[in-house]
């Protein structure tokens, strides 16, 4: 970007550096995150003593060199010890990592789309990305396509459906003015069309309908180390490319005319950002299903507590989104003992009141400040 953009960027109200109080907010989010990451492996349907959990983690990380007998003092039963190791190492830790990754993907995608569309209601599913992913998943559940290789086929089809929806919108809007309104309306129309197609498909298979319904509520329970590895690579690359566009997003907030006058190719930039946001969303959708509210709420939390500068909003939205989804998943496995509820229920149940509280307090503070 040009020096002119730098100058405008510096003058933009969106790019004012956070004052010290805001840095404290960022630090608080970070500390909360560390605490949450440490506590989450302790949470699950099967009660395992906390010390035992950390012994198992150290045992596995060291290849058995540390705590050679990880269950000593807890249980003498070899099968139960083996079950504990599997639960902690192969179940809880991959779930923890996937929650962080998928939440981060949704958070940064939401922040990007809110910046691109300059619309606070924009989120990763506005453009029909969830409907595309759900249609892809439905093909596995309803037609039992590739059932034997479901661990590969399901995320691939969901990814293809989700990304395909994003690409279709860009192609459909390409020949037109390419304006924000055209893109938004194309996305809404496509989402509606895909949802109707999904309904028709599900009418022919009620069993598939139930599974797709649960998939639509989202969850990170299907996490494995391999899936986490794939998700980590894809989400990290796409997210980093998005973070590199923080300054351009700041300039875009000043309007098309200003941005274009200083040499920022807004139409092309918008397409590139939407494509990257679609890609990162599709990576999350592929492994977690549709998890709502994270992409909407995470950027707002960052903007309201830390800064509106997109160079800060983008990475912190990723962090906030990851922690938000992890906290929601912890609630999903603990609220009803013995029952694992879809995490999407809790992102909305816990997220909506929290979000409203944040909005209300800020409004109250503004009102008091005004008077």
């Amino acid at each position, binding site marked *: 970007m*040009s*020096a002119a953009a730098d100058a405008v960027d510096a*003058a933009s109200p969106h790019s004012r550096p956070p004052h010290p109080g805001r840095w404290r907010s960022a630090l608080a989010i970070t500390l909360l995150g560390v605490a949450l990451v440490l506590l989450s492996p302790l949470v699950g349907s099967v009660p395992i003593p906390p010390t035992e959990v950390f012994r198992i983690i150290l045992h596995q990380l060291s290849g058995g060199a540390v705590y050679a007998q990880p269950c000593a003092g807890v249980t003498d039963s070899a*099968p139960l010890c083996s079950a504990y190791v599997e639960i902690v*190492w192969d179940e809880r830790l991959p779930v923890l990592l996937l929650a962080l990754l998928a939440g981060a993907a949704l958070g940064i995608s939401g922040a990007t789309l809110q910046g691109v569309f300059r619309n606070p209601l924009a989120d990763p599913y506005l453009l029909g990305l969830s409907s595309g992913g759900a249609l892809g998943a439905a093909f596995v*559940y309803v037609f039992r396509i590739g059932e*034997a290789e479901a661990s590969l086929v*399901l995320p691939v089809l969901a990814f293809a459906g989700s990304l395909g929806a994003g690409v279709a919108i860009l192609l459909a809007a390409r020949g037109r003015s390419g304006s924000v309104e055209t893109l938004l309306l194309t996305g809404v129309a496509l989402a509606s069309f895909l949802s109707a197609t999904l309904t028709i498909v599900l009418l022919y298979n009620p069993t598939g309908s139930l599974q797709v319904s649960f998939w639509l509520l989202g969850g990170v329970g299907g996490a494995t180390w391999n899936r986490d590895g794939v998700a*980590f690579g894809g989400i990290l690359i796409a997210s980093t490319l998005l973070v590199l566009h923080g300054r351009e997003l700041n300039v875009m907030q000043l309007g098309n005319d200003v941005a274009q006058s200083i040499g920022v190719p807004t139409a092309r930039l918008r397409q590139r950002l939407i494509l990257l946001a679609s890609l990162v969303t599709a990576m999350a959708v592929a492994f977690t299903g549709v998890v709502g509210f994270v992409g909407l709420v995470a950027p707002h939390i960052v903007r309201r507590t830390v800064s509106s500068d997109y160079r800060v909003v983008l990475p912190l939205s990723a962090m906030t989104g990851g922690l938000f989804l992890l906290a929601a998943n912890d609630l999903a496995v603990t609220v009803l003992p*013995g029952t694992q509820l879809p995490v999407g229920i809790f992102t909305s149940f816990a997220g909506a009141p929290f979000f409203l509280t944040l909005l209300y307090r800020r409004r109250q503070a503004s009102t008091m400040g005004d008077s």
Partner: protein
Amino acid sequence: MSLNPPSTGPARSISFAWFAVAVLVAAGAAVAATAAYFEIRQNHPSASATTMSLTDDVGRTVNVPVNPSRVAVLSPSIMDSMYRLGLRSHVVAVDCYSAAFGGLSADYSSDQVSLWNLSSSMCVQVGPTLNVEQLLAVSPQLVLASTIISVADVEEISTTYGIPVLILQPTTLSGIVLDVDLLGSLFHASASASLLSADLALGLGNATRVAQNLTNAGTPFPTVMVTYSPVAAGSPSPGYYSFGPGTFGTSLIELASATSISANSTLPYPELSGSAVLAARPQFIVYGTGFGLGLPDYAQGPDWSSFAAVQSGRAIGLNSNFLTEPDPTMILDGLPALLALFHPGVPV
């Protein structure tokens, strides 16, 4: 404020982006390799010395331990077969419908949970959602599941944890008998399986014989509507969910020598409007009961009181499980109940 971009700006930005991409690709590959290493390194439960290869109802070939002593049964219909075969003692985990209700609605006892001797602590699956932690905690050697289980869960259980998963989901009435035989050979319970299979074959044979006798005598088959769920009049889409082609409900109706008014629908589970039922004028209406549904719910459906079958007292409730759960109870209890309803006085 200068509006002239410095010439070095874009080049620097692009090279940094490529550098970042290269670093992150390497990081992603490293993490994926590490993850794969840990996944490969983990200890899978060693396969039992005595295993057998079976093909399940969805065509998967699975190596399973012979006569496993610890089995997770994730479907009420499979639990029905296990109980009837005297294999309850092998069951260490079940789905929550079996644990809470003894199936979606009890098949043959008002207190079927006690009869099956199940407790809520054994429940590891709600609908398609499997609680993998609780499943692992009971160390099952084998999982028996229906197709309601998520395909991703099947992969995770069998690949990550090395626990074989056998899908038992018959698509025909004779498939129920085949699954009973399969369980019998798997659990070394051939004697009890043979007895149960004989009972099932007898039930199917009797129904076929009745149909043949009625056809020979020129007796027309009655038209029927079998519904398992109403949508109240006044709702945006009021009607009665029924059975279409290829479903167990329709197979049962045909085997009970009757003709379903929705047998030729384009959907497997169509919703019939009130006017469609009025036009078809079924001689009998069978409505599914249990799981919170009863006559008052159906009576709120569109045009219910106008149906000829209702006015003539030929609308009868039947346990929904008899019509929907593909298990021995469907043949041993559901089929005779329908025959007695449609053809009273005909010996079965």
